[in-house]
C-alpha cells in the first residue's frame, strides 16, 4: 500500500509499504478514505520532535472504513464508517476511567523511554515519534487501530467525510482548549495562532458562551478566517505592543483566558525571537515559547491559560513570577479525545458547526510531501490540507 513516510527533516516520501495486519485481539484495520496534515505534524517535518526514525508512517487525523476486526472487538463490524482519535486508549486503566484518555497507562509500549524525558508517560499516539509508541499513522491507504473497541466512532450516514474528519483531532482539540478556559458569562478569550486548532478554538469558545474572542496572528487569510468565525483580530506585526493592544481592548484588565494555539515553533519578531531561535539551534532549549510568554503576561489577574499548542521538551525565560503572583491557572494536555468525539459529532449533525470550513487544499495522498511544504510555508493561502488515498 501507499504510505507517507518520514525520512528526516523536510524529507517526506510516499512509499510502497506492506499492508497492516491484526496484531492484537482488540485491533481493527481501517481502509483510510480521508486523512489530514496536522499543524503538529509540521513539528515532525521540521525535525523538532525527538525519537523519529527513518521510515515512520505519519498521520494522526484520519477516518475510513473498517475492513477487519480482531477477535475481541465486538462493537465494530466490517463495513462500518468510522473516525479514529489520534490518541490510543485502553479504556480501562486509571487515566481512561477518569476520562483522561490521552494519558492512557497501557497504550504506550515505549513508556519507559517517555519517562526518561517527561518523568511519566502519556498515551500512545498514531504516527507521532517513538516516545509515544512508534505507532504507524494514517496518512496511508490502510492503518491498524489498536484498542478499536474504545477509539473509533461510527459516523452518521448523513455526514460527509470532510465534515466528520476533524473529529479525529482538531475540533475536539480546539473544543477542549476552549473548555479549559472555564468560560463565564461576559468573558473575553484571546487566542494566539489562527491555524486550524486556533480556528476551532474560536468557534468552540462561542459555542461555550464567550462574550468576545480576540484572535492573534500575522497571516492575512488566517485572520480573515478568524473574523468569519466572529473573532476580533490583531495582526501582531501591525501593533507596537501586543500586550498594550490587548489591555486597551479589554478595559485595562486583560483577557479572562488566553489560549496558546501555537506551540513550540512560534514565530515572532525582535530580540526575543532571535534569542529563542538561537538557543533552539544550539539545543539549549527545544521549544520556542514566544506565544506562551505573551499569553502569560497578557492574561488578567486570576485568569486562565489554556495550552493546546504542542511542546516537546524544555523552554526558557518563562515569566513564572507573573503566573504565581497573579494567580493564573494553567490548563493543558493532549486532547482527551474519546470524551469529546460523540458530543461534537452530534453538534455537527445538528448543524451548530461544520468543521470542514477550515479546508483550503484537497490533494492526493501521493502528493503529501508537497502538501507538507505548502502548509509549512503557508503558500497559496494554505490553512488545512486533506489527503485522499
Amino acid at each position, binding site marked *: 500500500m501507499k504510505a507517507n513516510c518520514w525520512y528526516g527533516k523536510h524529507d517526506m516520501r510516499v512509499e510502497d*509499504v506492506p499492508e*497492516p495486519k491484526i*496484531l492484537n485481539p482488540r485491533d481493527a484495520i481501517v481502509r483510510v478514505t480521508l486523512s489530514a496534515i496536522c499543524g503538529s505534524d509540521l513539528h515532525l517535518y521540521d525535525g523538532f520532535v525527538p525519537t523519529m526514525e527513518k*521510515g515512520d508512517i505519519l498521520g494522526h487525523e484520519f477516518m475510513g472504513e473498517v475492513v477487519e476486526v480482531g477477535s*475481541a472487538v465486538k462493537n465494530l463490524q466490517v463495513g462500518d464508517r468510522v473516525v479514529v482519535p489520534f490518541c490510543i486508549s*485502553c479504556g480501562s486503566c486509571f487515566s481512561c476511567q477518569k476520562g483522561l484518555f490521552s494519558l492512557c497507562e497501557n497504550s504506550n509500549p515505549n513508556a519507559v523511554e517517555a519517562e526518561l524525558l517527561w518523568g511519566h508517560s502519556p498515551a500512545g499516539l498514531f504516527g507521532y515519534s517513538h516516545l509515544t509508541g512508534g505507532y504507524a499513522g494514517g496518512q496511508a491507504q490502510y492503518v491498524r487501530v489498536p484498542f478499536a473497541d474504545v477509539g473509533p466512532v461510527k459516523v452518521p450516514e448523513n455526514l460527509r467525510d470532510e465534515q466528520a474528519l476533524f473529529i479525529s483531532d482538531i475540533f475536539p482539540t480546539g473544543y477542549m482548549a476552549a473548555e479549559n478556559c472555564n468560560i463565564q458569562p461576559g468573558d473575553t478569550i484571546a487566542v494566539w495562532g489562527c491555524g486550524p486548532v486556533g480556528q476551532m478554538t474560536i468557534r468552540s469558545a462561542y459555542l461555550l458562551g464567550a462574550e468576545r474572542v480576540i484572535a492573534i496572528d500575522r497571516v492575512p487569510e488566517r485572520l480573515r478566517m478568524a473574523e468569519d468565525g466572529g473573532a476580533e483580530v490583531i495582526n501582531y506585526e501591525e501593533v507596537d505592543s501586543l500586550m498594550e493592544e490587548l489591555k486597551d481592548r479589554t478595559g485595562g484588565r486583560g483577557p479572562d483566558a488566553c489560549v496558546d494555539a501555537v506551540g513550540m515553533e512560534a514565530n515572532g519578531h525582535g530580540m526575543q525571537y532571535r534569542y529563542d531561535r538561537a538557543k533552539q539551534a544550539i539545543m539549549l532549549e527545544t521549544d520556542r515559547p514566544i506565544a506562551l510568554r505573551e499569553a502569560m503576561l497578557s492574561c488578567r489577574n486570576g485568569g486562565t491559560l489554556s495550552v493546546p499548542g504542542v511542546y516537546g521538551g524544555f523552554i526558557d525565560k518563562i515569566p513564572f513570577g507573573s503566573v504565581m503572583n497573579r494567580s493564573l491557572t494553567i490548563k493543558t494536555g493532549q486532547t482527551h479525545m474519546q470524551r469529546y468525539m460523540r458530543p461534537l459529532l452530534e453538534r455537527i449533525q445538528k448543524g451548530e458547526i461544520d468543521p470542514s470550513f477550515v479546508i483550503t487544499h484537497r490533494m492526493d495522498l501521493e502528493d503529501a510531501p508537497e502538501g507538507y511544504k505548502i502548509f509549512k510555508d503557508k503558500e497559496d493561502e494554505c490553512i488545512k490540507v486533506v489527503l485522499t488515498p
Partner: protein
Amino acid sequence: MQNRLRKSLKSNPEQIANALGWFSIGLGLAEILAPRALSRLIGAKASPGVVRLYGAREVACGIGLLSQAQEKERWLKARVAGDALDLFALGNAMTSNGAGRGRLALATAAVAGVTAVDTLCAARMSRRPFHKGEPLTVRKSITVGRGAEELYRFWRDFEQLPKFMNHLQAVSDLGNGRSHWVAKGPAGVNVEWDAQIIEDKPNESIAWTSLAGSDVDNAGEVRFVPAPGGRGTVIRVELRYNPPAGKVGATFAKILGEAPEKQVAVDLLRFKQMIETGEIARTEGQPAGRSHSTSRRFDDFVRA
C-alpha cells in the same frame, strides 16, 4: 561523529572523562598564559585577570578529573557548572560594545557542544551499569487496577511469568515450592537456575531464592499492597543478583543489559497491560517505510 561519540560515551565514559580532563587543562593553561590572545580569538573584550581566573578553574577541574578516579562524576558536574558560567559570560560579552559577534557566536556554539558532552558523560557516569561479579539489587513498583488476590494468583503460577517477562524463556514448577528458570541469553546461550519459595503469604507476598548449583545466585520478592482509595494494588518487586565472574556472569550481564531497572519496569508495564487490557501493547509486525517494522534504536532499545 555524533554516533561514534554516543557509542564511546556508552561503552567507556571514563575515557571521555579523561579526554575532557586533558581538554580542561589545555584550555585552562591557554587562559592563564595567554589571556589577551584567547580573548581576541573568541572575539570578547575581557580583562586578563578574569580570564586567568577562568583558566585556574579549568585547570583544577582537569586535574580533578584525571587524578581522582572515584570522584570523576563530581568533577564532571563541576565542569558542567563551569560551562554554564562560560555561557553566561559569553552571553554578556555579546551585548557589550566592541564585541566580535561572529567569533563570539562560534565560541558560544563550541562551549554549548562541550556542555552537551560534559552533561552526557556525567549522566553516564552517574548510572550504575551492571558489572559482572558485583551484586545488584533492583526495586520497582507499579499500580494495577485489580485486587491483590487476582494478581497474587497470577504471579504465584510462575509458569505464566514468561508471558510478560521478555527475558524468561520458561519457568517450570517442580512441585513443593521448587521451580526451574531459564533466561534467554544472547546467541542462544541460556542461563538456568532452580529456585525455592522461601516465604509465601497468600494475597500478600512471595519470596524466592535460587538453589545451590545455579548458574546465577539470585533472590526475589514480590509484594501485593492494596492501593489507597480502592485504586487497585501496588506491586512491589525486589530482585537481587549475585552473578559469578567468568563466562556465565558475562552472559548474564548481557541478559540484564545496561539498565536492569529498565527491564523490570518494562516487564511490570507488560504485566499491567496484560491484566488490565487483556493484551500487551505492541507495534512489532506493523508496516513501515524501512526493512524493520519497529525502530531498532528506540523501540527495540526499550522493549528488548
